[in-house]
Structure formats: C-alpha cells, structure tokens
C-alpha cells in the first residue's frame, strides 16, 4: 500500500499577529511547526503502513526551511519526504497550492490513499485537501474520524458530521482529510530521529513537476485578499454582584430579556 500524506508548515502560536500595512502574518520570532491537524494525518499514514505494509510518503510545499517538518514526519515513521519549493509557488492560494501538490503527486506515481489534516491552523480554509482530490479526479471523504476497514480496494470510513457521523465506503485511490479524534499521534522515536537526520529530502521545483506556470503563485490564484484585519475585541459586559442565589436570579432575568 502506498500512502501519501500532505502537510503544511505553520507558525507555532495561537495568537498570530498581522501587519496592518501589508495584511500579512508577522512571522519574525515565531517558530514553525507541523500544522497540528496534519500530525494526525501523519500518524494515520504511519499506522496504515504498519498495518498493511508498503510505503508512506510525505509532501509539503513551502520555503526551503520546510524541510524541518518533513524530517519530523520521517522521525515518526514516514519513509520519504518531498519538498516543493520554488519562487514560482510563492503567493499561491488554496487552488494553486492544491494544483501544485496534485501535479507533484502525479509525478510520484501510483498510490492508494492520500491523507491530509482537516485544515491548517493558520488559514483555516480546509480547501487544499479537497482541492487535490478534484485536480486528481479521485473521490474524497473529509473529516474522517475512523478508518474501519480497507479491503478489496475499498475503504470504509467514519466521517464526522455536525449531527453525528456517516459511514462511507470509498473506492481507492482516494483522498481523506482527518480530524483529531482519529488517533493519538506518537512521539518521534530515537531511531526515527536518527534516520530523519540522515534522510535525503527530495526537492522539486515547478519545472520538475511540469506544472503550468499560469496556474501557480499569485497570478495563478483566483483568490484576491482584499483586507486582513484583527477584529476589534468586544468590550463591556456586565458584572453581576451579590450572593450566588441573587446572581443566578439576575442572570436568568438578563437572559430572559436577551432571548425572546
């Protein structure tokens, strides 16, 4: 079985600040990590490889420093890392990013399953995974919380919905995006870290994957960011005072007024 896991390098902080002049993230002094949701994708990829045998490949698109997250994935048990890095990719939106990744996956060759995290913690779009499946013209199941069974080229998965979950049978090759309920990611192993340190990361440029130039980067991105801003924090609020009983009464009264 060949599993391909797609990951993203994101800034490690929940309080990302934005430069109001340029509308871009302030990245100085912020450490980069594997997108937290992608760690579950890596774990699931490694588990599938351990269960069914075969190979797990990891791929990311980003600056040369993104090699670090690929090595971290290898230390968790992934076999091979591929980095798409080229100025031509800079400024890609989710459409252009998923196009570039899908083109690279075509170059990798045969695979059975692509696993992505449900979304990135910085952009929160949840579009790249589904985008890849669209570009590759393969089925996708998003928000997978459990892979029940893989048999006869068919995967039975549980997909989270707002009301509960669905059980979906999907023919392979397919793409799934996973939620954190799917597993508990392992910590790296020492032997894995040693292997990761020595691993040769494959670097591909736009020309290596034969991507169309007009589908990449800012010019290839249909998304136009008009404005990014930090919303004004809500202020005010009312502090209720008195004994617990009085506070509860006041609160119930206030809620009655608010909710018709």
């Amino acid at each position, binding site marked *: 079985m060949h599993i391909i896991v797609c990951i993203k390098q994101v800034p490690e902080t929940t309080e990302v600040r934005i430069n109001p002049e340029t509308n871009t993230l302030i990245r100085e002094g912020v450490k980069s990590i594997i997108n937290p949701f992608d760690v579950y994708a890596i774990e699931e990829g490694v588990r599938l490889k351990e269960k069914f045998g075969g190979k797990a490949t990891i791929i990311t698109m980003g600056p040369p420093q993104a090699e670090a997250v690929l090595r971290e994935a290898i230390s968790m048990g992934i076999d091979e890392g591929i980095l798409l890095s080229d100025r031509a990719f800079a400024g890609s939106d989710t459409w252009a990013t998923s196009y570039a990744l899908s083109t690279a996956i075509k170059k990798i060759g045969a695979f059975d399953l692509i696993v992505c995290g449900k979304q990135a913690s910085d952009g929160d779009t949840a579009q790249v995974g589904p985008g890849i499946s669209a570009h590759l013209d393969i089925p996708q199941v998003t928000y997978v919380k459990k892979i029940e069974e893989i048999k006869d080229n068919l995967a039975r998965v549980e997909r989270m919905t707002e009301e509960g979950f669905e059980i979906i049978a999907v023919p392979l090759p397919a793409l799934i995006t996973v939620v954190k309920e799917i597993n508990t990611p*392992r*910590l*790296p*192993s*020492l*032997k*894995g*870290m*040693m292997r990761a*340190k020595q691993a040769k990361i494959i670097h591909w440029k736009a020309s290596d994957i034969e991507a169309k130039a007009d589908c990449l980067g800012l010019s290839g991105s249909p998304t136009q960011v008009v404005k990014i801003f930090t919303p004004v924090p809500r202020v005010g609020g009312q502090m209720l005072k008195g004994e617990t009983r009085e506070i509860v009464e006041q609160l119930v009264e206030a809620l009655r007024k608010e909710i018709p």
Partner: protein
Amino acid sequence: MDYLLTDEQKMIQELTRKVAQEKIKPVAAKYDQSEEFPWDIMKILAQSDLFAIFVPQEYGGTGGGVLDLCIATEELSRACAGIAVCYAASALGTFPIILFGNEEQKKKYLPDLAGGKKIAGFGITEPEAGSDASAIKTTAKKEGDHYILNGMKHFITNGGDAETYTVIAMTDKSKGARGASAFILDKGTPGFTFGKKEDKLGIRASSTRELVFTDCKIPKENLLSKEGMGFIVTMKTFDMSRPGVAAQALGIAQGALDEAVKYAKERRQFGKSISSFQGIQWMLADMATEIEAARALVYSSAREIDAGRKDVGKDSAMAKLFASDVAMKVATDAVQILGGYGYMKDYPAEKYMRDAKITQIYEGTNQIQRNIIALKLIKEMAK
C-alpha cells in the same frame, strides 16, 4: 550552557524532554499517589527507543554510552523521579548482560530489553546485606546442568514487574566475596516468587519488592561470566550505573528549581512578585549554581567511563555524592520558596523533596561514597 553534547546526545535530550514534559509530568502526581507501575509510560519510552540507548547496536540498541543514559535519566527525573527509576533500573538490570553476557545470552536477552518489550531488574541487596554486600545469604547450588537457588532479596526496584533479573547468589560460601556468582533469571521460573511490596517515602511510581527463591531451578547457561565473578559483575555494573543515579538526582534538582522559579514569578506578596525579593533571588541563584556544578561533575564522570578509562570509581562516587546532596538541598529550598503551598500535595515541590532523599541512600549511601573517595585519595597519596 551547551555541555558540548554530540548531535545524537542533543537528540536524546530533546526527545526525552518532550516525552517527560508532555507525557510524564501530567501523570507524575497520579502515580505518586496510586503507586501503580507506570506501564503506559514504559510503553511510550519503548516506542521512543529510549530503552535502546544503552544497548549495543548489534543487539537492537543505538549503542549509546553512559552519558547518553544520564541525559535521558536526568530529563525523565526532572518530570518524575519515580518513573525515571523504573527506566534506570532496567538499565541497571541490563548492564551485567551487556558487560559479562556471552554471545548466546546477549542474543537471547538484549533485543527484547532494548526494544522495551521486557524490562529488567538487578538483585543484590538482602535484609542483612546492604552496604556490606559480602554478607549475602542467597545460595546457588550446582546440581548437574542446573543451579538451585534458595534465599531472598529485598528492596529490588522493578521487582515483580521486570521480566529479566540479574541476581547475585553465593556459589561457594567458604570463599566469602569471591564465592558469589551472577545469574540471569526469568520471571515465571518455578520457585521464583515475589514477596512484600514496599510503601515508600518517595519514587512511589516505581515498585520495590522482595524476590524469593525456593528451590528455584535454573539452567547452568544462566550463569553470567564464571562462578565467583558475582562481585566483579556487581562492581563493574555499579561503576556504569552510578552516574545514572547522579543524573537522577540532577533531574530532581532541576525539576525542583523549575517549580521554584515558576512559583516565585507568579506569587505576589506585599504588592510585589516574590521573585523581586533579594532573599528569594539569592536562594534561586545558589540553587542554579549548585545544579550546574553537579551537572558538570555528572557529565564529566560519565564521559570518563565512555572514554574507556578503567579507574572511574572515585569520579562516579563524587558525582553521585555531590549531585544527590545538591538534589536534597535544592528540593528542600524549593519547598521553602513555595512556603505553605510547598508543603501541600497540590504543588509538586514536596514530591521532589521526597524523591530526592533516596538518591543519598541507594546504590551506595553517601557515607559509602565518601569511603570510596577517601580510600582512593589515600591510595593515590601512597604511590
């Protein structure tokens, strides 16, 4: 400080710190209270290859040395010394096989120990044979292709939970210390049972039990090295493992200091953070300085062993003596800085203090360490 660690040692430090802070620290108080054996943590340590670091590569290890083990033990102890000692005691039980095992014994036991599939224990101490190890009463009588063991060991770390034990027994009482031999024992061997589990002041996540041998029949292939080598096996094993106890003490001291600094920054009295008071600052400064001095001694004694120097007894005794005294002092001061809260189980300071005490006692009391150092000094002077 960088401590001039190799890339591999930095990796071990990074990994064990991650395991310790993310997986062990949150459950340290739970295991301290319940005294359950921390199997779930042992599984994580195994999965992270941490049991492999002290085993040679040809037997499934990563071929690290004593310093590698010290770095791992220090980081684990910084989160919980009880859990760390389960790990370190497995190394202690494994060392005799690494140092004195023949090819068949190594092939049979080391891969499972390196993979953390089994953990090990080491049994020498008896009720009447603590610091005076030559007084052991457990006997091993040769009968044909077997040895028959009778007697008991007590205060054995990992006792009952380990699968593989190295045990010292007398094969010839008339020869005194030279009549002792070392054996490998598997849990489940008929006649090999476990007695009382101790209720301890500290390191409560670790199990400390009696090993009981009643006509316990083991194949002669389980003899380590030769008959009469028991004390050499023990001494060489302790030379390897003593810096590990020092590293455990070091980790406890560092963990206690971490808590003291954190609390001093948070706690406000007289309208100010207590970290702004010179009385607190000077305590913290002394604690940090003593820890660095201990670390220098521990790492350098471990490096001496890894470099293959023969006569390391004095250095490792100094490291164990100094680091454990520092741990006791720093942990006591940490409780002082936390004041009333330091005395309560809601904060981890009191646990560091309870855990620190054993490091002054086991693997040779600090009085015995002083004997070793002084005897060596006098011997050197006589040359």
